């Protein structure tokens, strides 16, 4: 860290040098994602919450499209007064972002007039509009599921002739690929349609609570608004049900710590009616609930449970043991609801006047209206839809591999979507002409080089932030979603000249103090490796890890606010969690003994 003029700041974008051995990283990303010289004047932070790993070329779409949508909604559709959209840049494979603030008072006022009308309309009609939103999302999911990748057989389907379609199937290679991208874009527009308004309502309630109760832990505010019947908990609930079913069917002995899904399935098939019943229950549960992503839906390789059953199978043994021990496997929803309502009622009683209580009722009431969206949209968008989206793209990869352009289907994710366009054109032309696609010589060396570079880039430790300290953090998403506040910045800047080598500081997201052996997971696909009683140290916690939380003693993340789903889940499991440390995965090694203090937000390496 190079202090400039005494004021605290972070390294400047222009000071970041290429990682040796991966100097060609720019070839993977679009020109508009490069840092510009004038970007040194602005504050940027590493979005490790959504992009904790170096970006494969295709996956940059999961930054490009969300930012296209969120900015459109805040800046142009709802006309938020103090913030425009979010800009992103990629350096050494990592995504940095910044929100563009509006600071001119006259401009804010002009925008506020439009905003009040438009946002007011959504708040006023929230339930009705959200119901419509769900219908639309169901429609988008059906649409993406219906997309077929043309097989390009030697002769086209006779129906093209008998129904006089007049359009050969090579046309649909591009049309259907574009349709995937277009549907993904629409999904993100809908995703961000309610997002900022939803978070805005929460931030306002949060600020109120912090003013009325300066000592209130962030997590207590979160608990007051948290939903109980949250769709993101459904996959976990299904697992608990399957554990109970295993005991009921007498096949529970197959679910031992470290069990392998394939072996369990083959054993189940030889277990007669009990095994068959469990398998039927399993098939029923997995659609749609096992479309939950192992990650957060931002990387092609973050597979869904359906594609990688090790995550659900890592959680099942514990639930089975609970059922055997006579403990109810299902979440105690009534008790959770009663506790949430008790907390909200007690804080209400503690307020100073009836006037304050009336304002509190309004704000909390509004939060409860918007929260079903805030909590549930992820399952529809980042999980269910995105799982389908990546499956379709992989099918295009299979086509390219069959046609000899790519070595294997997954290589498609090492091409930028505009490069995929070119590869598909190549295939469409060759099929039409009866020739051979030319892409093998062009793309295969490129893909090999990119795979190599991504491995090199994986070891780079990106600074948590770049550029000068911002004057204001006006963007509710930045505060809510990323947990970036003035305090975070201070922690980040202090972390770079760390005083105590053995301590990592973050935010206490769930209280309690425990000691245990650390398991550092840089790659979310390794979550299945977590063993009973370990302490999870990860770049960011993903909602679908919920079930695995039952096994661990505590969770620590590099980034995340107290409203991240993982923080909520940690609280629900009653285990300490420290989030937003910026550094934990760098400073802590697997096997080290650590003490996690979820009250103070401190992780200490003790052996």
């Amino acid at each position: 860290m190079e202090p400039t003029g005494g004021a605290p700041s972070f390294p400047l974008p222009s000071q970041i040098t290429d990682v040796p051995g991966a100097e060609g990283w720019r070839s993977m990303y679009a020109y508009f994602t490069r840092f510009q010289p004038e970007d040194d004047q602005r504050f940027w932070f590493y979005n490790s919450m959504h992009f904790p790993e170096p970006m494969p070329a295709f996956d940059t779409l999961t930054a490009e499209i969300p930012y296209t949508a969120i900015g459109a909604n805040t800046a142009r559709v709802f006309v938020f007064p103090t913030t425009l959209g979010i800009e992103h840049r990629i350096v050494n494979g990592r995504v940095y972002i910044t929100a563009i603030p509006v600071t001119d008072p006259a401009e804010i006022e002009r925008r506020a007039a439009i905003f009040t009308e438009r946002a007011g309309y959504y708040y006023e009609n929230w339930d009705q509009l959200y119901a419509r939103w769900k219908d639309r999302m169901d429609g988008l999911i059906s649409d993406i599921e219906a997309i077929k990748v043309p097989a390009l057989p030697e002769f086209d389907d006779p129906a093209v002739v008998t129904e006089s379609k007049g359009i050969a199937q090579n046309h649909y290679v591009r049309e259907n690929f574009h349709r995937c991208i277009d549907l993904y874009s629409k999904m993100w527009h809908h995703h961000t349609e309610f997002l900022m308004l939803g978070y805005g309502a929460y931030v306002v309630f949060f600020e109120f609570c912090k003013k009325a109760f300066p000592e209130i832990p962030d997590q207590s505010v979160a608990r007051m608004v948290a939903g109980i019947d949250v769709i993101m908990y459904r996959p976990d609930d299904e697992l608990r049900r399957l554990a109970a079913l295993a005991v009921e069917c007498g096949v529970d002995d197959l679910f031992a710590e470290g069990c392998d899904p394939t072996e369990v399935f083959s054993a189940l098939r030889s277990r007669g009616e009990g095994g068959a019943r469990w398998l039927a229950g399993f098939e029923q549960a997995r659609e749609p609930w096992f479309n939950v992503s192992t990650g957060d839906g931002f990387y092609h390789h973050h597979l869904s449970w359906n594609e990688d059953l090790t995550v659900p199978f890592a959680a099942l043994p514990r639930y089975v043991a609970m059922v055997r021990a006579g403990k109810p496997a299902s979440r105690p929803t009534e008790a959770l609801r009663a506790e949430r309502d008790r907390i909200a009622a007690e804080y209400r009683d503690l307020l100073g006047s009836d006037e304050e209580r009336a304002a509190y009722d309004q704000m909390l009431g509004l939060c409860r209206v918007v929260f079903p969206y805030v909590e549930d949209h992820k399952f529809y968008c980042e999980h269910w839809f995105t799982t389908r989206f990546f499956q379709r793209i992989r099918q295009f990869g299979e086509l390219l591999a069959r046609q000899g352009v790519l070595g294997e289907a997954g290589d498609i994710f090492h091409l930028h979507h505009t490069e995929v366009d070119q590869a598909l054109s190549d295939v469409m032309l060759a099929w039409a002409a009866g020739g051979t696609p030319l892409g093998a010589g062009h793309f295969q060396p490129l893909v090999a080089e990119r795979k190599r570079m991504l491995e090199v880039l994986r070891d780079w430790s990106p600074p948590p932030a770049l550029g000068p300290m911002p004057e204001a953090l006006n963007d509710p998403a930045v505060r809510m979603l990323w947990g970036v506040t003035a305090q975070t910045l201070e922690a980040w800047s202090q972390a770079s000249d760390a005083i105590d080598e053995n301590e990592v500081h973050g935010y206490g997201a769930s209280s309690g103090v425990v000691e245990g052996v650390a398991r550092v997971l840089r790659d979310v696909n390794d979550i299945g490796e977590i063993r009973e009683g370990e302490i999870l140290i990860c770049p960011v916690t993903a909602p679908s890890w919920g079930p695995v939380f039952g096994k661990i003693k505590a969770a620590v993340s590099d980034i995340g606010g107290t409203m991240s789903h993982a923080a909520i889940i940690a609280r629900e499991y009653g285990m300490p969690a420290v989030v937003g440390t910026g550094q934990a995965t760098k400073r802590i090694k697997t096997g080290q003994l650590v003490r996690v203090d979820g009250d103070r937000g401190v992780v200490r390496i003790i052996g």
Partner: protein
Amino acid sequence: MSDSDFVRGLAAIGLRDRPLAGGKGASLGELTGAGFRVPPGYVVTTLAFERALQALHPGGAAGEIRRDVERLSSDDHAGITRVTAAIRERIEAAPLPAGLRGAIEDHYRRLCAPAGDRPVAVRSSTTSEDGADASFAGLQDTYLWVRGPAAVADHIRRCWASLYSVESVTYRRRLGLPEEPLAMGVVVQRMVDPRCSGVMFTRSPTTGDRSVVCVEASWGVGSAIVSGDVTPDIYVVSKVTGEIIKRAVAAKLHQHRMAADGSGIRTQEVPAHLQTRACLGDDEVHALARIARRIEEHYGTPQDIEWAISADSDDLPQVPAEERIFLLQSRPETVWANRDAAPVAVPRRKAFDHVLDALGKGFSS
């Protein structure tokens, strides 16, 4: 006038007895009556104080001292120093009126029974309604480890005299408070030898937050905290969830302890291995917070509470935390009570107007 007008057991005193028992005595009596664990004791009432003042003036001119004080001007430091020194000397030197001495000795013996002369704490308890007693609370008007009837009588007179300390009189003259209704009760309680002690507030002393209990604790007698001789451990406990939301274990270098020869409270160094150790277990923090909430509930307003954990109970680890804790004082919190500001927010026409307002001007971080 009977004995019970001069001396009365804590169990027979309530808040309404403030004119008779003074603020501290009334509060301790109230706590005792409400079932909280207060070291057993009695109050030498304000009637006893009046009687003693009268005895200074055989002619019956009890008002003379008060008139002398009322004539003083708050900026006349020299005058206040001279006049109050004389008053204090007279009060401390005069023997207790006979009937009074008998009653006080009688209660002391009963407090000690069946043992011999037990050590007691002798604490002043004024009737003033304002924050004067709070502002000048401290060492000068509380005497610990007092043993034997003669010493007890001695310290009761010192407590009476402390009503005429320079600080106290200057304060009253600055506010122009009348002297007539002002009197001093004295609390005599069985001494608790504390392993650790401290104060707790049922709202945050630093932010005024009513949703937390803040506990400050250090080794030995609580006077170490009040006098600023030690940085205490600090715990912040949520009243709503019961969680300990902040804890700061300080390096507690000093403690106030009774000298081995019983000659008085000494400032000692804390043994090295205890300095950075938390002096409370989590169970004790939780128990203190629960007690604080019950006391606040009993009074209906935020409280400022002094407590101690008996050293004897170290031998009895099976004793639940709640039963190791003694309460030494509870008074209404005054700093934030007088500062309650404008409401954080007022209701709007529509709930979402709150959000539109906030998003319209941005969030200050």
